[in-house]
């Protein structure tokens, strides 16, 4: 029999044992920039990665480390590193692997900032990306070049809700010896642990369901420990002599945790994308109830899908669990607990009706976030994806009339009653337009 704690238990305990001095049951907030070294030898050992421990909060912090270890435990990784945001996690992960001249194959249907980073920012640093449909495994394979260093996508795309077949894409990545990096913000480890299907590096925006209460921005990078960086000479900054620490070879010194060792030694050190200890504390509070919240998110999402698909004012509804979704069969196999609590839909009357809906609801909050305990709505074309070109919007499967709903934990009767307010406003606009 395994001694390993189960998911719900790890959500509460992983990463933390009450300290011997005070016995604090809750994770203490170590709100400090620095740590007193015992002597010069101790300081040198920490700087040279001879010992574990903390030397400066830009690199690591005891409260943040609890969060990191909890996320690593929940995802089944060898390690995790927390960052100031999900975008900081992605950017630093890319910078840890890629150098100028390298190439990425990425999903064309992702969160606007993910697209922006790859399409507009990274080329300035010599890192280019080929965008392909996330559900076209052959296209992903065909887009791989000799200099491809990452295959990147979202398990459940934001906001288009395209679903990637993780196992199939992982097989392509494995054959090409390219790490598969996945943004797992919409699935969380409660819905899917992609490392178990062969994904190598996971990106989380902890701001969303993991934290779950809309109080702290944060991100994390999980190292699956299942990519052989030293198999060939394609990843010389991880599996070759590095400029730091007397030409350390992270692959030889840290084995399966080589990526994380470099991420912390170079990424956290040079780029400084650190999470604040207080934010780590807030996110830890959220993770304690992740299993409970996710179940309720799934229950309310199922109810809202029924409400929307049956409503006369609704033109279309998209969610991976609906039989009309192109990945419905995959979702049943890969995401048996549910496919997230984001629903996108369009109203009869198009964009104007959608705007009327958003301005009429009173309980649901109109804001640029998802995964909050509270129900949220937004119109992506005018907000989260407003920096994306019209062509990229179309390629990403986004329409002008799309409303993104992040289903919260309120009583479902109150959510549907609120939506009826929005529907009535939308109906008035649609009727006026028709006259």
């Amino acid at each position, binding site marked *: 029999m*395994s*001694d*390993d*704690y189960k998911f719900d238990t*790890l959500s509460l*305990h*992983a*990463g*933390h*044992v009450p300290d011997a001095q005070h016995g604090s049951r809750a994770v203490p907030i170590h709100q400090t920039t620095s740590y007193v070294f015992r002597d010069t*030898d101790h300081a*040198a*050992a920490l700087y*040279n*990665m*001879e*010992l*574990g*421990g*903390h030397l400066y909060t830009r690199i*690591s*912090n*005891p409260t*943040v*480390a609890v969060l*990191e*270890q*909890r996320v*690593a*435990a929940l995802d*089944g*990784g*060898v*390690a*995790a*590193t*927390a960052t100031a945001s999900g975008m900081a996690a992605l950017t630093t992960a890319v910078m840890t692997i890629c150098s100028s001249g390298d190439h990425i194959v990425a999903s064309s249907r992702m969160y606007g900032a993910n697209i922006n980073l790859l399409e507009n920012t990274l080329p300035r640093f010599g890192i280019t990306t080929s965008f392909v449909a996330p559900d076209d495994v052959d296209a992903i394979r065909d887009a791989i070049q000799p200099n491809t260093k990452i295959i990147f996508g979202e398990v459940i795309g934001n906001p288009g809700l395209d679903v990637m077949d993780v196992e199939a894409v992982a097989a392509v990545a494995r054959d090409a010896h390219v790490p598969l990096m996945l943004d797992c913000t919409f699935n969380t480890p409660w819905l899917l642990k992609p490392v178990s299907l062969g994904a190598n590096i996971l990106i989380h925006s902890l701001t969303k369901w993991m934290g779950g209460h809309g109080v702290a921005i944060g991100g994390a990078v999980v190292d699956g*420990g*299942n990519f052989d960086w*030293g198999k060939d000479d394609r990843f010389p900054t991880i599996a070759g002599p590095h400029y730091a*620490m*007397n*030409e*350390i070879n992270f692959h*030889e*010194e*840290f*084995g*399966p*945790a080589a990526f*994380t060792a470099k991420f*912390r030694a170079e990424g956290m050190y040079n780029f400084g994308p650190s999470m604040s200890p207080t934010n780590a504390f807030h996110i830890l509070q959220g993770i304690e109830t992740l299993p409970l919240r996710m179940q309720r998110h799934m229950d309310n999402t199922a109810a809202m899908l029924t409400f929307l698909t049956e409503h006369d004012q609704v033109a279309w509804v998209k969610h991976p669990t609906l039989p009309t979704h192109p990945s419905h069969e995959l979702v049943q196999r890969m995401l048996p607990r549910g496919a997230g609590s984001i629903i996108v839909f369009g109203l009869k009357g198009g964009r104007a009706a959608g705007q009327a809906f958003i301005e009429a609801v009173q309980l649901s909050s109109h804001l640029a976030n998802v995964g909050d305990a509270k129900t949220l709505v937004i119109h992506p074309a005018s907000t989260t994806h407003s920096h994306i070109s019209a062509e990229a919007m179309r390629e990403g499967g986004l329409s002008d009339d799309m409303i993104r709903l992040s289903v919260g934990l309120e009583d479902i009767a109150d959510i549907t009653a609120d939506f009826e307010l929005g529907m009535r406003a939308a109906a008035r606009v649609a009727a006026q337009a028709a006259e």
Partner: protein
Amino acid sequence: MKHEQDGVSIHIATGGVDFDPQGQVLVFLHGSGQNHLTWVLQSRFFAHRGYAVLAPDFPGHGLSGGTPLTSIEAHADWLIALLDQLGVGSATLVGHSQGVLVAIEAASRYAGRIDALALIAGALAIPVNDMLVETALAKPAKAARMMTSWGHGPAAHKFDNTLPGHAFLGFGRRVMEMNDQAALHADLVACNSYVRGKDAAASISQPTLCLLAAKDKMTPAKFGHKMAESIADATAVTFEDAGHFLPAEFPVEVNNALSGFLSR
């Protein structure tokens, strides 16, 4: 560093410092199904404190090539041949688990080559239950999961870790997956078959430090104490909250104990 022995490429961690055979040589010997990564928090630490560190991957393990050795005696012979080829006159051996058996066998038969012993989470015999041996043959990944789970103590199961962000269980399993698929089974059979421990211990006169883990389910501490009692010049230290993977679980305490012993 890479070293070729008997036509096989052998990986040896030297702690990030070029190996000097004229230095005070410290050889770290990993356990069953493990490799040099047992010693992540020892190899760099001691290499940067003046010791000439060798943490080899036995054949078929970690980054070494070749096929796994099949007996503890063969491991001891292989170790001495390695020291010969590297120009090392004598060395202190630090063994973990199966590495303890290799260390006492080498110290017994090659007494002039071994200065001292540090024996971590070990015993004079390491019998392995049939179920684990059979699982290691038929389903090595499952056996690795079982060993990683049993081998870690209570704090490790709560993912308390001195290395920020690191997860013992995930890391432990991946380390074992790096090895040749046959490695774990060969190692467990070698442990099971080794019966010279008592005789070897009786002949050991080198100073010996035994570091034992009170929560060790793989080689319970009571057998470690018997080992210490069987060696003429041995001292035992027990870590109350540690499991079998003591070097990773309590690296600071282990390194302090080793440092004190080495500078005696």
